[in-house]
């Protein structure tokens, strides 16, 4: 909850700024802010609504036109049951069509609803919205060492060339020496060919040992790591379609991420919250990693098979079976990792560790999940030091920040790289 509040605060700050500028320019009243609406839409509405398509609830394009009174619409969003009770014709028709009552959103202010409606109007105007182009995704972390790797290759090549030149020069030198000796009539022993020269052989062995060792060690370190692991799943579930195109909040399905160490694979009843209604896939073409075209509707049918849902009868007709998903992100037994710690206390975005998940049809392991990778992040990431009262006990750091000795406190400084933070 805290997290959301703070986002809102920040957004408020932005909107106040926008508001001030707007007031100076045109003396107009506060205008609804579609950008703010987008965030609200994604966290509150997207799990059941799309702008263009019917999901669990109706497509929202033109929603304002369909309601007789904007006030009534507001009321409907705040508490749909109350509107139904008034006997409003349109509202009751809606309910009869979808057979699901819309949950109340008493926390949304009227301004919030206006923002959402502005966002819907904007999307409607754009005709489909920014499908898949979620510009809020942070860039996948750049590997800072990429540049230096290129350099080392360059240096390697130069070293090799220089070595060859040195070798040739040495040969020339020895040949010249030999010629000079011959000329002077000094008897010199016949030179050993270089492939029999013990110095050369030793050198070659040494180089091979080092190169071999390098690859062996690298290979050994990589054992058990499975970066880029992208197994085939029992159902072709596309994150691009769900949180991407349909903008369903990650936490709607992975509810554990805020509460538990496990983010949780959603139980099938969560899937069926929407898929009771959505039985056909009507989005763009889907392709798997091998380039084979995937029939989205058939994949939804697989889900029905698992949960025992009869799409025609609209009823559960068989006992459900769990879906045996293949686990992608595997940490060893001796590592304790807690999602809620990172999401709630650390305020990390899912994408920090899971990459541009909203653009992926099939999920792959984005990070290598190695200890070095964890530690690197803990060294550079700043904790919410001033905002979280938990850290009030770190008096010295607070003083240092105040005195300007340090500008921020990293996870490492509060003990985040110690063994027993993750191993016990």
């Amino acid at each position, binding site marked *: 909850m*805290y997290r959301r509040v703070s986002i809102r605060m920040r957004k408020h700050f932005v909107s106040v700024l926008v508001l001030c500028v707007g007031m100076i320019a045109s003396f107009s009243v506060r205008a609804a802010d579609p950008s703010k609406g987008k965030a609200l839409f994604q966290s509150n509405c997207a799990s059941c609504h799309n702008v263009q398509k019917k999901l669990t609830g109706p497509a929202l394009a033109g929603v304002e036109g369909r309601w007789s009174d904007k006030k009534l619409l507001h009321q409907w969003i705040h508490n749909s049951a109350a509107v139904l009770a008034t006997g409003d014709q349109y509202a009751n028709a809606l309910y009869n069509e979808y057979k699901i009552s819309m949950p109340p959103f008493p926390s949304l202010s009227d301004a919030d609803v206006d923002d959402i409606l502005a966002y819907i109007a904007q999307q409607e105007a754009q005709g489909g919205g920014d499908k898949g182009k979620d510009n809020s995704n942070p860039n996948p972390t750049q590997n800072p060492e990429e540049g230096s790797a290129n350099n080392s290759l360059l240096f390697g090549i130069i070293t090799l060339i220089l070595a060859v030149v040195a070798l040739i020069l040495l040969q020339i030198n020895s040949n010249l020496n030999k010629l000079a000796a011959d000329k002077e009539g000094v008897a010199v022993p016949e030179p050993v060919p270089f492939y029999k020269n013990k110095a050369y052989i030793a050198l070659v062995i040494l180089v091979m040992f080092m190169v071999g060792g390098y690859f062996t060690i690298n290979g*050994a370190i990589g*054992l*058990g790591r*499975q970066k880029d692991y992208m*197994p085939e799943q029992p159902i072709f579930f596309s994150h691009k379609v769900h949180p991407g195109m349909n903008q369903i909040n990650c936490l709607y399905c992975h*509810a*554990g991420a805020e*509460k*538990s*160490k*496990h983010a*949780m*694979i*959603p*139980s*099938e*009843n*969560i899937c069926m919250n929407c898929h009771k209604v959505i039985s056909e896939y009507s989005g763009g073409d889907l392709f798997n990693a091998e380039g084979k075209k995937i029939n989205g509707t058939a994949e939804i049918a697989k889900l029905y098979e*698992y*949960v025992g849902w009869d799409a025609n009868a609209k009823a559960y007709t068989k006992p*459900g*079976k*769990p*879906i*045996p*998903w*293949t*686990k992608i992100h*595997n940490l*060893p*037994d*001796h590592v*304790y990792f*807690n999602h*809620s*710690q990172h999401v*709630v*206390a650390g305020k990390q975005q899912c994408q920090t560790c899971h990459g541009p998940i909203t653009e992926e049809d099939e999920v792959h392991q984005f990070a290598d999940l190695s200890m070095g990778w964890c530690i690197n992040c803990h060294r550079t990431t700043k904790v919410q030091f001033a*905002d*979280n*009262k*938990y*850290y*009030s*006990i*770190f*008096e*010295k*750091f607070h003083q240092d920040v105040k005195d300007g000795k340090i500008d921020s406190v990293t996870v490492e400084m*509060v*003990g985040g790289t*110690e*063994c*027993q*933070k993750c*191993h*016990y």
Partner: protein
Amino acid sequence: MEQKKYWKGLEELHNTKEHQEIVNNEFREDLPFEESESLLNATTPRRDFLKYLGFTTAAATIAASCEIPVKKAIPYVNKPEEITPGVPNYYASTYAVDGEFVPLVVKTREGRPIKVDGNELSSITGTSSTARVQGSVLSLYDAARLRFPTIAGAEATWSELDKQVGAALAGLGGAPIVLLTSTIISPSTKKVIAGFQAKYPSFRHVTYDAVSYSGMLLANEASYGKRALPAYHFENAKVVVSLNADFLGTWLNPVEYSKQYGATRKIDEKKPEMSKHFHFESMMSVTGANADERYTHKPSQTGDIALALLNAVGGSVSAPAISDKRLADGIQKAAKALLANNGKSIVVAGSNDVNVQIIVNAINSQIGANGTTIDWNSTVNYRQGIDSEMEQLVKDLNAGAVGGLFIYGVNPSYDYYNAQAFTEGLKKTKLTVSFNSHKDETSENVKFAAPAHHYLESWGDAEGRTGYFSFIQPTIAPLFKTRAFEATLLAWSGNTTAWEDFLKNEWIAKLGSQEAWDKALQDGVIEPATAPALGGASFAGNVAEAAAKIGSIKKSGKDALELVLYEKVAIGNGKEANNPWLQEMPDPITRATWDNYAVISNKLAKTFGSELGDDYEINNDKTVLKIKANGKEVLLPLLILPGIHPEVIAIAVGYGRNANAGKAAAGVGKNVYNFVSFNGTTRDFYSPEVAVEKTNQTYEIGVTQTHNSYEGRPIIKETTLEEFIKNPEEVNEDRKELDQFGYDPKNPHDTTSNFVKNGTLYPDVHQYQGIKWGMSIDLNTCFGCGACTIACQAENNVSVVGKEQVIKAHEMHWLRIDRYFGGTDVDNPEVVFQPMLCQHCDNAPCENVCPVAATNHSSEGINQMAYNRCIGTRYCANNCPYKVRRFNWRDWNGADSFANNLYDVGGMNDDLTRMVLNPDVVVRSRGVMEKCSFCVQKLQDAKLTAKKAGRPLKDGEARTACQLACSADAIVFGNVNDKESRIYKVRNEEQKSRMYYVLEQLHVLPSINYLAKIRNKDAEKAEGKKEEHAAHHEA
């Protein structure tokens, strides 16, 4: 300062050659090569060496480069709302086995119980528990439990069983039906039984307690007209006199009494006072070991002592002659103290003799205990068995006068003194049904086995003390095809109500609403809003008659031996013997594991050619004795214990279970219940006539007593109350020697002080910016009961190693309780218990020597252990002055990469038993070191909760398992940097003069401090002091 001599055994006291040898050879953990002799002499040719090298490298490569297995993530089909994977749920429940009453909170993860702790809302027991309560969660996953109902040994369905039993009941034709149970403290269960009785008028209910208290019940009836047990209030007692009652270990409800007694043993430095505890006993019990004054006697003398005490407090009886002067003086002393504290003292007795208990009641009446320390208003239901009823039942069974026998929660074929007669009678009975959870000694002879649930799978309620209720609710769906005892009985009495509904209806009727019932289940307890006033009772017993009967009790002659039976703290009456945790818990007094044995004094052992002081303690082989009493005999190894009466042999009951009891209990020790005898009214748990002879056999016992020696370094500090009042600083006088190093006793934790800064290799002392964890252990309120050891084991997945490995000193307990004897009187030593666990030193010697930095220091003051980094050099254990590091010599848990390395003797590794493992703590593989982590998983969890809520960590949110389990609140834990925390206040305000660190002079700067023990005894005579002092210098 005067240094008192402490010793773990007589060899240490006399510092024998053998003792020095074992001390020099500090690590008894020899390399585990049984055939090391031949191995060391073998020559390994160079080629062989190369072959092995090549093979192992290749094997390691193949093993390591195998493909990573594909793992599945299986979600719920329909997730229960209350379960979030990874987040524990807590349910209130109650441990109500055999009449013990401990309200609990059960921690479940992903729907399986993994840990129990006391329920904070209970005013009787609070968060405390005992070793057996802690171990009960493992009993749930006992692989030897019955998994389905059986008819004549063959699996049956419940409906078939119901049909056949129904038919059999109908066919009895009015022949009596008897239900035989242990003490039942559940009002609703009693109502179900009453319902059955209503249907079958020939029915009767017999309560049988394996270890009987019917002497007390009958004496109370004779004295006060109530066949009940009063509620004892040790917290109100300034003087406690116990005649053989082990109220801190096994007597009635030890958690409750430990909590009360502990309150009187806490020292307020500003106003130092504490209770005075006199103890008279034959064997040394945990309670006796904690007494201020302890006297030993033969078991048959208990009555005489009670009479002498009654006489001395002014009762109208003549005192029998007591020849032992020390004992006679002790009685006079105790009487004096009782008289001086009229209305503030209490006398309790463990005897099962009605007459002895009548005399004890007379004493209590004389000293004004009724209504002040003994409450007759709210009586307790802890034991209800009357021995003569059971005696009659066995007679009836053999006479064929019983038509049907239902057995629930008792095992008389094992623990009845005349088990054979019972079993024969059982076989003669037409309809026999057992509700026991195991196919135990009794159940194997019944026709119908209708196994009941484990209490963690059950619904139920319990009324420990009148008006004090606690509830039981299922924390897991039944693991097997079992059915609640009450449900079965309801079905057979023709009541179609489900048991849970029956219970719910009962309580909704009592409480008024569903909401009140829900709240009751959530809280777990219902107690009177204000504690009812204590009530007295007027004594109306016939003292003269009781005295006369005591006079006729059979006694042994001078120098003749007597036998006494006792319960061990961990195993108790043997019902829960199939529990590897409890079997491996070192007995608080003998420090022995996995066995029972004949405990004798050194003096007696000499007559069997075995004696402390030669190589007795070094060798685990003990001489086996043949012990004969009551016409029965048993072969048991002897174990020498300083402090037992020289003419007494003590043997623990609860051992010698048969193979059906399960892997851990089967064949461990010998059953000695057949030494119990029936005196016409009650059962006696001693025998005045015993013949003992030595055999040529020897037997190995896994005693942990001499593992880990401190080589006589001072680690215990103690003083007497009198001296402490005179000069509180005296107990820490030796600290003055540290002054020269800049030690500031007023501020020992000042990281800027020279003492902390100097003498370390590293110029930067650790800075603890946020949290600095610290623990304080009060030696005055540690009674050595071992609840913390098992709590730690349950919380941290500590391995069970088995007897063979204990003998090799490979036990794994992170927290051990060292038992030291003090003083020089070998027959009457003083005892100190010291819990010893990783001290989390700020200048830790282990950290400096680890070649791979697997153990290092955290910014919160925890000495961290990264198991996966450890390569097993054991340098750290070598360098630890406290000997608290534990090495995994074997793969106890199947945690190794190689499959067939598992070494499991306790039966801890089948899929069922492994469900008890705490998923937040990794199981350690072979070859790594481990030790106490301060329950870091609990600390991290508490911190995370605070962090997520965006608030500072509150004191008391992070509690270690040992701290929670301790009934006497001996352990205080918290953030030392927080000036409002209890630990800060204990160290800096409340207990400044008693606080010390063990081996402080080594400058390891431990994070655990101890509070010096204070005995409420008379100051020793000046001469004695000198002698002791001298002895120390010689040593």
